[in-house]
């Protein structure tokens, strides 16, 4: 049971990271980015493409130091482009229009992925290798340790940016009231684009971290992102901490239910019903809006 919880925690960390990226975008544009998972998928394929690059005679690994910045730049570029092409022109329209735009983009990305890499599962390469460690009698793999370390680093960096930098203050101000922000001289367009780019890069990192633990095909992030949408909703869509904690809880709950469930496929049903009940009881999520 302990191992189940530990595994659930690490899956939950990824759900939480993805949910944080969704919340970051939602706070500034009031749009749920349904192409968030697919953005990560494209970046993960590019990352592992660079690391497992075949030449005529052998595989050439350009290394993480080349592959990771390239994938993050791609994610940031996709995020920035989506802000410019979808979110900004539709800002004065009902938010549903923007969300439909992101759904269309997600389908476009999946189609592009199938065209480039096909529908099959692709091989990945572990980001770290080794024996792992034993913690309280439970074995934690190097990949899981990496997920934990990266998650902590990303959350600390995000928290510091939001709380202690002028860019973070501008982000918070734009999220609270874009009208007042523009009257204060804040370039709300640049702020929104920066936020989407940040979230895009975050999506890339999340996908790269989880890919070696799952079967990487063009929809591997779609199913993970569905969970993170639920986590973001439970977190009230505006609270970074709320969304992250909800993602973490969801990961653990999923693991435990799967372990205890006598019927295959029970997990999805229980999680879905649980989320529906919570949303009926607390439509605004479990956490109050916080900026």
């Amino acid at each position, binding site marked *: 049971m302990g191992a189940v919880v530990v595994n659930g925690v690490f899956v939950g960390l990824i759900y939480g990271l993805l949910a944080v990226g969704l919340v970051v975008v939602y706070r500034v544009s009031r749009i749920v980015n349904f192409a968030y998972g697919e953005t990560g998928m494209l970046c993960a394929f590019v990352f592992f493409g660079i690391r497992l690059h075949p030449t005529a005679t052998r595989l050439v690994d350009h290394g993480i130091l080349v592959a990771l910045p390239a994938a993050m730049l791609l994610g940031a570029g996709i995020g920035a482009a989506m802000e410019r092409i979808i979110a900004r022109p539709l800002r004065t329209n009902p938010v549903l229009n923007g969300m439909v735009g992101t759904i269309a983009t997600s389908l476009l990305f999946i189609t592009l992925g199938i065209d480039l890499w096909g529908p099959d599962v692709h091989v990945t390469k572990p980001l770290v290798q080794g024996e792992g460690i034993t913690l309280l009698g439970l074995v934690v793999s190097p990949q899981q340790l990496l997920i934990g370390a990266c998650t902590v680093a990303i959350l600390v960096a995000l928290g510091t940016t939001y709380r202690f930098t002028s860019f973070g203050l*501008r982000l918070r*101000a734009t999220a609270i009231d874009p009208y007042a922000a523009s009257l204060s001289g804040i370039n709300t367009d640049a702020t929104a684009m920066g936020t989407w780019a940040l979230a895009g890069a975050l999506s890339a990192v999340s996908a790269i971290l989880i890919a070696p633990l799952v079967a990487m095909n063009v929809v591997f992030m779609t199913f993970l992102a569905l969970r993170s949408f639920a986590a973001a909703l439970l977190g009230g869509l505006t609270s970074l901490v709320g969304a992250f904690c909800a993602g973490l809880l969801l990961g653990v709950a999923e693991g435990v239910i799967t372990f205890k469930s006598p019927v295959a496929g029970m997990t999805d049903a229980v999680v879905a019903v649980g989320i529906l009940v919570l949303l009926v009881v607390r439509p605004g999520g479990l956490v109050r809006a916080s900026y």
Partner: protein
Amino acid sequence: MSRVLDIRGLDAGYGHLQVVRQLSLHVDEGEIVALLGPNGAGKTTTLLTVSGLLAPLAGEIDVLGAPVGSRSPQALARAGCAHVPEGRALFGGLTARQNVALAAGRDRPAATQALAYFPDLEPHLGRRAGLLSGGQQQMLALARALASRPKLLLVDEMSLGLAPIIVENLLPILRRIADDTGCGVVLVEQHVHLALEVADRACVLAHGDVVAAGTAAELRQQPELVASGYLGAEI
């Protein structure tokens, strides 16, 4: 004395709804011009158009010597046009200090100088803006505007929801700000007599038309001119 705002033949409104007709108005450095009139006269619409939040239907507006044209509100704000809108538009979830810091950016002395005009705010700088009283919020809104070192300050209905005694205290501060910093001020205000006490000139709008204009001293001497703008009231 240079001109910070020059409005010529302005028609303004919302889509096909014209609210202001043929307004001409100018504000010089260090001058306070009161824009008076009843509800629906077009005062707020005028300010929204000057600060780039509404596109003018016709006419020309020069802010700090350059046409407003298609400049965005943030571009105008960065150029030196600060707008304290009706309702104050504070960031309620941020502290008072953060609200001011946002406008000051890297110019920290500007924040300090702006807050110096409002010593009553000092003990509350660490509180969230949304938790301050109405008077404190209005002071904060003015301080935030000042922290950007504006050359043109647009103040809309600062008395909204405030006791007259608070307005009586705030308006002389606005006069000091204009005198000290050379900032030109357009003041939209319902308390006519209080506004005329601090303003240099005034313009009375009714149903979008200018019905009276002159120096504040002239308008103080001829209250019937001002009153005629308010629902055709007679003295």
